């Protein structure tokens, strides 16, 4: 018994001494420290940037200008109800868009830091070019929503102030120029190319009323031969097409952006929560001969729904950022009635409609905007189109202050240096 006692105690002591040394240092199995990023990680950081710019702004950011543009309505109210309900500093879509764009910007700026840290890395130069494009893309989204916004060339914890809108536009143009010099052709239209930078710049210039430059850039893409108008059946059904200049691939397993879910109802085989549907006026825009109609609209159990994103709840669909039809419309609008109407009719003919010849500039602008409603429905254009052309008040019954979005209430509370947009 004595011997056993000693033996047992010895085992105890041994067990006690051998336990738990260094077990208090635990590290994630899913992550690395940002300091530990090395030259081999640059491609992964690049993919992370694409993923972030695609996902962070959240789904409604990709149709916000439709929600505010009078072309769609919620399933319970009119488009005017939807606009009034959305344009509030407490609205969650407004808040998550703001948060999401800045969250995406953080990853973009981080990409630039890392690419600058490892200039000799594979893809470093390409990644930089893409990052400059994304910065311009994000700021285009920000400036067209909130007007003056803080320009963040580097990530910062400071409580920043808003920069004037002109400085923001200048920053966007500068970023696109840098991007264009660093970028060339892309491996597919799911990656940013030099053409994508040019297409976005054309849009940016048109927004600022720099019509001649906008027309020149749009024409350069139309005449380059790299892109041709193509059928909606190919553009919006993930088939090879000649239209798209840049789109987010938005693969099911990589994405939280499910636009289709918001448009389809539970009556559709693919299911959707059916939060928004086209207004009767939008439905009426599509003539029988319009070959865009079947892909733009679908009748689900008696309700017309937007049909451009086909997956419903079963998956995700690519989100187009730029395609050549927009260049036709930019060119047509920027060149003015006499020079531009040709491009407009070219597009109309391709879509199965006849030529038109508006009698005056007002009618011409109306025709352009109507064509944009048909062509770009559900692609995040309308609100900005109406605001930049001065038609928003009349068409959408907007109050003066509703021409920009409210800065989210949360952000105003947490950063007293931000001045709210008046009226909210």
């Amino acid at each position, binding site marked *: *018994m004595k011997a056993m006692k000693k033996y*047992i105690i010895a085992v*105890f002591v041994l067990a*006690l001494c051998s*336990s*738990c040394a260094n*077990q*208090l*240092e*635990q*590290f*994630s199995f*899913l*992550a690395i*420290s*940002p*300091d530990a*990023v090395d030259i081999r*990680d640059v491609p*992964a*950081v690049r*993919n*992370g940037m*694409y*993923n972030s710019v695609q996902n962070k702004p959240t789904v409604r950011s990709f149709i916000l200008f439709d929600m505010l543009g009078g072309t769609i309505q919620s399933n319970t*109210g009119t488009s*005017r*109800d939807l606009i*009034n309900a959305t344009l*509030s*500093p407490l609205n969650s879509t407004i808040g998550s868009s703001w*948060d999401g764009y*800045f*969250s995406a910007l*953080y*990853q973009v700026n*981080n990409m630039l830091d890392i690419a600058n840290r490892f200039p000799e890395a594979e893809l470093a130069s390409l990644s930089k070019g893409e990052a400059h494009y994304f910065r311009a893309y994000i700021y285009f989204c920000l400036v067209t929503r909130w007007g003056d916004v803080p320009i963040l060339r580097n*990530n910062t*914890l400071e409580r920043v102030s808003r920069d004037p809108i002109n400085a923001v536009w200048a920053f966007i143009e500068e970023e696109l120029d840098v991007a264009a010099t660093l970028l060339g052709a892309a491996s597919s239209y799911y*990656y940013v190319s030099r053409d994508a930078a040019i297409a976005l710049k054309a849009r940016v210039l048109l927004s600022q009323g720099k019509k001649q430059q906008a027309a020149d850039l749009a024409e350069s893409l139309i005449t380059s031969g790299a892109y041709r108008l193509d059928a909606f059946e190919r553009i919006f059904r993930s088939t090879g097409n000649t239209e798209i200049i840049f789109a987010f691939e938005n693969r099911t*397993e*990589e994405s939280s952006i499910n636009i289709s879910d918001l448009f389809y*109802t*539970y*009556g559709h085989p*693919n*299911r959707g929560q*059916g939060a928004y549907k086209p207004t009767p006026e939008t439905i009426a825009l599509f003539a029988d001969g319009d070959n865009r109609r079947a892909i733009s609209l679908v009748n689900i*159990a*008696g*309700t017309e729904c937007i049909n451009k994103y086909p997956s419903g709840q*079963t998956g995700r669909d690519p989100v187009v950022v730029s395609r050549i039809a927009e260049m036709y419309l930019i060119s047509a609008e920027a060149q003015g009635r006499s020079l531009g109407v040709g491009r407009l009719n070219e597009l109309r003919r391709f879509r199965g409609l006849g030529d038109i010849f508006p009698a005056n500039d007002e009618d011409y602008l109306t025709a352009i905007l109507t064509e944009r409603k048909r062509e770009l429905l559900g692609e995040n254009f309308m609100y900005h189109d109406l605001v930049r052309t001065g038609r928003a008040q009349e068409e959408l019954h907007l*109050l003066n202050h509703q021409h920009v979005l409210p800065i989210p*209430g*949360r*952000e*105003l*509370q*947490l*950063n007293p240096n931000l001045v709210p947009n008046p009226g909210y």
Partner: protein
Amino acid sequence: MKQKNKLLCMMKQYVVILLLMVPLISFAQQSTVIRGTVMDSSGQPLAGVTVEATDGVQNQRFQASTNDKGIFSLTGLTAGKSYDVAFNRLGYERYIERSFLVRAGDNNSLLVRMSEAIEKVDEVVVVGYGTQRRALVTSAISKMNVDESTLRPVSSPAQLLDGRIAGVSTATGSGNLGSGERVSIRGISSLSASNEPLYVIDGVPITNSNSNLYDFGESMSSLATLNIADIESIEILKDAASAAIYGSRATNGVVVITTRSGKEGRADIRLNVNGGLTQFPYLNKIKMADSELYIRDFNEGIANYNEQYGLQIGNSGYKRPISNPFGNLPDTRWMDIITQTGSFFTVDAAVSGGTQKMKNYFAAAYTTQEGVIKTNSMDKINLRGKMSYEVAPWLEIGTNNSANYVRNNQIPGATLGTTIIGRAIQQRPFDRPYKPNGDYYVGGTDELVFHNPMQILNEQNVYLEDLRYLGNFYTTVKWKDKLSWKSSLNADVTQTYDHTYYNERHPYGLGIGRLLDRNRLIRNYLFENVVTYNDKFNDFSLNAIAGHSFQKIATRTTYIDARGFPSPSFVVASAAAETMSSSGLGIYTLESYFSRATLSYLDRYILTGTLRTDGSSRFARENRWGWFPSISAGWNISEEEFMQGSGTDLKFRMSYGRTGNQDGLGSYVYQALMEGGFNYGGNSGIAVTTFGNRDLTWEKAGQYDVGFDIGLFNGKVNVLLDWYQKNTTSLIYSMPVHATTGVTSITTNIGSMRNRGAEFTLNTHFNFGQFQWLSQFNIATNKNKITSLIGDDTPISIGGNRALQTGQEIGAYYLFNMQGIYQYDGEVPKEQYDIGIRAGDVKWNDVDGNGIINDNDRVVMGSSNPDFFGGWNHTFRYKGFSLDAFFSYVYGNDVYAQWQVDVARVGHRNAVLSEYAENRWTGPGSTNKYPRPMDGDINNARNSDRWLEDGSFIRMRTLMLSYNFPTQLLSKYRIKGLRAFLQGDNLFLITNYPGWDPQVSNNMDPRFFSVDTFNVPQPRTFTVGLNANF
């Protein structure tokens, strides 16, 4: 055994008795005998009862004690004399049979029933890493004995505590089976997510994570796996002096659960069988408008809209009135369609016994339940084996193992898109679930507004399966009863499987069937060594422990999302057309050193000190270790000589201690992380997810406690009184930051707060001959206040309706304040008129006076915390009958009745409350409370005090009638005890709250607590059962 006797010696009554144990000689010529049996209140024989007969005239004393059949015989008494016969036993009320006339011969017999003492001063209390006599306890520890009279048909032990202990409040997510719970001990001590106390079961700090792996609309209790019938007692370590021994996780208090064990010198077989019915209570309390009323108001809302915007038939945006598409068919009773009368059946059995060397306990239990919502059901199996073996006088080994299994067929909770009550009660009254051909009407389309609740329930197959092993193996080495060393290996291993299957006909089934198949394995291992030292030096006694522990918790998950099944018969991912999967692993470790010393002088003056230090992997190396000391002192005033014999027990206690909290923190929260999974184009990508914070450190709480334990009239009345103040500093919080930083929150030490409160418990125990009346009343109050926060004093808005602000309490609401209804268009400020506000709409308090209602106009008001709360229990016993009536109450808490938001919107597309529909504003002066019907209203449904309701209530928690069959009758059948009972739970509720149950919440986080979104109320339960002992 020796030690046990020593303990007994110290008890007052026994000291007296032992002094008098000098054998007394009988002088009398006619010596005679009293024989008898002593039983407890349930009719079980009581061993070890000291029986003492006193002859008042000659002051002679005679003693005997009962054997394990409860039988005694007192010899040497004089025939023809009267004696007072007193019965004493530890833990039981002293019983005296006065002036018992002893006759000559063998016929003197006594049958005595002794009742258990409640809150007896000399009970033994489980403290951290050991037990202590109540007399030596200097901190605030409350004990709840779990027995037949305190059991309720609930799935989690936490729910047993409801109203039982002063300062402990509980709530459940809903009345669904296995729903998550919240236990709050002395208010809210921390801001970080869980705020739950630490649960320690038989010495093992368990993991208590949400059982749900796929968020099915409510959190699920991980404690629901446990067998409640196995629990002997629940101790609540309330103050820091008692909890500090658990250091870094003790700020929110500690719940110590002790399971039953075999008792020396006994062999018992326990068998409990019960079953019953459950009901959805107060179903008709929420009254919805019928079709006629609904359509009238809806069309008024449309007319108001069209008129306001000048719209005529044919105009763009013109809204058309509706009519009942089903003509004169009767309205659908939507709630009747989804509810049912639930039922349950439980059987549990235990075999226990022990000798001096070996004690064991084996138990098995099976429970099956059906909830009050169709398809909600739960099955539970629990097994336990416990054994200890004294190999040699210096060596004991033992083990305690429990295996538990739960399968819970869930229904959608209140925050899911298919929330079952919301998808029933909110449907328009004329709509119906089935088409004439039997097909479902599909929700979210023009034919039905919301998801069809029958489609939800019928076409899903959703269940949780928990397999949980909880147990330990230990060895104790002893030296001379003074020193012992216990080394144990403890484990809490839970395997959870969460199966969420939507077939192709379910709204979420994607038309092709979808399975979310999730597995989680949590391994929680604890290796612990504790050295205990007991000694006496003259009048001083010392009890000391020192120990070391190392705990490692590893969590491994596998998630599969499978889509596309050939038919609903295929339910595993391999049959799916497409699968996506992910897996995870996280490890968290904690190393601790702890010690405690209790020094007492003649049981009069007691001083206890504890010290613990914890090192956690959740903090950076330089901030890793936290120190948690405590000191407490007690004065047993009644042990002083001047109080001797007064029949009064009086103890004064005071304590101070520091505890920590690191709960609700991510495992790697201090580290900046660049996480994987941010893929694009089928290639892996990484992105920064957190900035990290190496300065992050322990949240610390310092708590003062002053208390009195008072026993009056020889223990007939007991009072416990405590005051405390708890100051938490370095509050850990995921602090909201401006989004331009790239993130929306940073985990940091943000500020400090204070909880102050008092607790009062009154126990009474009176005997009126055969009739006994026992009562327990408890009441507690707690005031929470945030004393500092990073930055300035402006409210930090959190969630949709709360704010944190210095000077306010956690759980304060941040809402718009209604100031009535605009009666005339002229009263509406221009800014509001422009966006469509008119007479009949709600007038909000425009705090900054700029005419616009925005974020600056919200006001911090109300609170989800009560002013006071507690419980009141009465037990009446007469012969074998016993009646228990238990009430719980809460006063002064506000509940955010968010369910009203939609159903109070008159003129909206969902069903409306008839109160709002009938009383709607129709013109100036008609009402100042109920707005006009308005389709597309954007003003009236704000997060506001319109939905803030008084949540005070008194609940008839349980009413139980039981009968103990007489032992004599049972002994023929070799049954030691048999008890039959009828119990009603939640029989009625007195409250102003307009909903079903103010005690449920869709969020258990104290910051967002008390939000009711049509949560299923706690059911009303009727139970009938039998408890048998062999």
